[in-house]
């Protein structure tokens, strides 16, 4: 929730100026007292502190059409409990997608009763579509189903549809061949440095959770682990799945995937990687209590995977319970671990001193301090589709936890670190003037919106929900708070995800239309 949105003073000031402007503007054109044609709509807008400015502006827009709106700030997990109980009315929320497919975004967020559906939205036709699309294999049919889903969601307006923020990252000019990736991971195998041979990355997190690739669910941990471990497949910065440890794969039937492994892959301890390690990796995740009595929290990410079988030393077959076309996208997130080493040192020994087949070896470190990696000299070279191929240019890679944004920027300016992620917009402006720093931004994969509680009045009325969408001018919000580093979304789908309909235009800012709809629903408005 609200990942990495550090609010600077300048942004607060901009927000205040915008607020004042809206107030003056509405005052000028309104002038007249409230026209009472029905009851007044009164709403509390819930938000976490990270998005307080945004919530205030939204409330101001709502007041401009005659809604009594007030902002209340919460700690996210406390708020979530109330949302799930259906007790709140309107709330700012967000959700990240990792699969470049609506599978882990639209389904959990909008399918009836799913775990991220805090709006309580339910539409039988949409449920049917979302259920069907998970098993459809033909891309055209899938796309068609998703297009239909977008139309339904757009029309039903369970949220005030919002935006996706761009990921803004910065690096020192000494860093070469650096490209932020849309899934916000940093693969140091490709990155070079012209001064020295150590690359230091500052992470905004307090900690990563583990060094065992079977025991995490969060992106920051994965960012570090993917430099130590490789998967069967990986992803280009813009989301395309390409081979990594697998040389190629075939799909003999809708429910079967066969992966042919490279024969030149070695783990950091010298053991060769073969089909046994792949089978072991997946069984360790799928079987309950397989990791020193603990169960991996990652099993669900594999979808309907039923079994993994070795065919020969370099061929593995995956069997699914039902078709799951995004299986290769899912596999990007699974790193292959060494069977022999884990059986020798045990699961906790492995987590303390992990051995993988990735471009860097684990040297030392603490999860909440810094993780030091050293180049693996016998690396097979990485994905042939992501050049350069070969061992990593940097000899040492360090991931340092620096949770405070100002300090991350200071460390970058001082040259202590070379790459930082999630640069707040106000700091990006300052940094762009520094000639030792390069800044790049890439489309993000997190959807921000304002959810409306569809279970009860007033938002059980579609007209009120649509009115809310017409009442808010997102362009102003995105420009003033996020410096324009964001994409306005028409619906719950991301442009980078599969099945996005680029022709669907967002609700325009039309306060008059909002007033008409509110009046139709029986509420008084302000003109």
């Amino acid at each position, binding site marked *: 929730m609200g990942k990495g949105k550090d609010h600077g003073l300048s942004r607060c000031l901009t927000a205040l100026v915008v607020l004042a402007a809206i107030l003056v503007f509405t005052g000028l054109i309104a002038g007249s007292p409230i026209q009472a044609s029905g009851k007044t709509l009164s709403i509390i807008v819930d938000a976490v502190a990270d998005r307080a400015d945004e919530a205030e502006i939204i409330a101001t827009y709502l007041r401009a059409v005659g809604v009594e709106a007030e902002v209340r700030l919460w700690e996210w997990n406390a708020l979530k409990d109330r949302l799930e109980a259906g007790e709140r009315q309107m709330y700012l929320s967000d959700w990240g997608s990792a699969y470049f497919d609506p599978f*882990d975004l639209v389904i959990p967020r909008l399918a009836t009763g799913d775990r991220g559906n805090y709006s309580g939205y339910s539409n039988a036709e949409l449920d049917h579509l979302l259920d069907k699309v998970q098993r459809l294999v033909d891309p055209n049919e899938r796309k068609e189903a998703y297009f239909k889903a977008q139309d339904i969601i757009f029309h039903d307006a369970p949220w005030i549809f919002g935006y996706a923020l761009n990921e803004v990252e910065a690096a020192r000019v000494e860093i070469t061949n650096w490209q932020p990736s849309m899934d916000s991971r940093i693969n140091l195998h490709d990155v070079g440095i012209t001064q020295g041979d150590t690359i230091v990355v500052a992470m905004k997190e307090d900690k990563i*959770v583990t060094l065992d690739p079977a025991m995490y669910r969060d992106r920051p941990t994965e960012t570090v682990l993917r430099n130590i471990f490789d998967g069967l497949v990986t992803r280009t910065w813009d989301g395309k799945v390409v081979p990594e440890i697998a040389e190629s794969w075939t799909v003999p039937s809708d429910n079967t995937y066969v992966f042919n492994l490279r024969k030149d892959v070695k783990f950091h301890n010298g053991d060769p990687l073969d089909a046994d390690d792949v089978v072991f990796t997946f069984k360790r995740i799928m079987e309950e209590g397989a990791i020193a009595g603990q169960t991996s929290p990652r099993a*669900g990410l594999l979808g309907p995977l039923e079994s993994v079988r070795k065919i020969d030393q370099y061929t593995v077959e995956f069997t699914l319970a039902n078709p799951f076309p995004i299986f290769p996208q899912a596999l990007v997130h699974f790193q292959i671990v060494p069977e022999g080493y884990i059986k020798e040192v045990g699961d906790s020994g492995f987590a303390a001193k992990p051995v993988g087949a990735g471009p860097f070896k684990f040297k030392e470190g603490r999860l909440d301090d810094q993780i030091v990696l050293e180049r693996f000299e016998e690396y097979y070279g990485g994905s042939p589709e992501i050049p350069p191929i070969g061992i990593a240019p940097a000899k040492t890679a360090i991931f*340092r936890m620096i949770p*405070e944004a*100002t300090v991350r920027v*200071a460390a970058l300016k001082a040259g202590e670190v070379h790459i930082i992620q999630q640069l707040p917009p106000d700091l990006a402006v300052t940094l762009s003037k520094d000639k030792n720093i390069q800044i790049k931004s890439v489309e993000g994969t997190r959807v921000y919106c304002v959810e409306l509680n569809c279970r009860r009045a007033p938002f059980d009325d579609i007209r009120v929900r649509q009115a809310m969408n017409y009442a808010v001018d997102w362009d102003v919000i995105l420009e003033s708070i996020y410096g324009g580093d964001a994409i306005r979304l028409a619906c719950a789908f991301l442009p980078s995800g599969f099945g996005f309909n680029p022709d669907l235009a967002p609700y325009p800012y039309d306060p008059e239309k909002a007033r008409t709809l509110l009046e139709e629903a029986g509420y008084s408005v302000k003109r």
Partner: protein
Amino acid sequence: MTRTQVQIIERILAAIPIMLGVVILAFLFMRMIPGDPVDIMMGEAGGVTHEEMASLRAQFDLDKSLPVQLVLYLGRLFKGDMGYSLQRARPVKEIILEAVPATVELALFSLLFALILGIPLGIASARYQNSIVDRIGMATSFLGISMPGFWLGIIGIIVFSLGLGWLPTSGRITYGMAPKSITGLMTLDALITANTGALKDALRYLALPAVTMGAGVAAVVARVTRSSMLEALKTDYVLFAKAKGVPDRTVTIKHALRNALIPTVTVVGLQVGTLLGGNMIVETIFGWPGLGRIVVDAIFSRDYPLVQAAVMVYALTFVVINLATDIFYTYLNPKMTL
């Protein structure tokens, strides 16, 4: 066994019910905060089934009733098992033991800074009451109390790291410089292994966070020392010593200070407890891998076992510090008893 020794043992035994109460309260309070740890653990992924969540809940006993959970927890605790972190997939004991040396080291250096600055400042202010020294000293200490840690820390980084380039912005030691780990305290390990390079490096990393954290404490120490010194300097025995012709310095240091230090020791004792808890703000700003950051993170992610264990460590710290303070009183003024 002397009477004092018996009393110390009594005090230690009395700490056991306190600890138990603290543990039970922490256990109950954490569960009263809304939020589901398993849901938080799963993040924002698709394809999470209710069965998967239920099985994880069962794995951590979260599916059982509160009294049953408490009994299971206490049972394990008596065997020395503090549980398994829900978030960090590791035994809680390991996580805490790893963080404590960093916190202790920072606390010790903050305290050292506070005492070295605070006590002389307090003495000087009292000795030369209402002089320019006194006024400057008290104004500075007022500033020390008023400046919030996050502000002082950031200003320190801007001036000393970015501007002058003297000190690193954050972290604990330069990669490759760390001494062989014996106690976990970088400076102490560097001293034991006679590694001057590591010692210098560790001190450079310690300087800014220790000063940031110690500034407030120094201010309190200076003010308390000043007021109790003022009182002591007016007592009969000090006047008598002066009348006898004892040199001014001896009167101040030997006669007045020793008695005046009792309130200071009380205050310092309380501050040490707080410092050892790990200052979350300072640790966050300087990326210091201590206990404070872990606890805050654990509270936000509803990592019940980790929070409970940390609270227990805090309670134990306060009990021990209080006892130590009381013992120190008897040293300063042998007429006092425990």
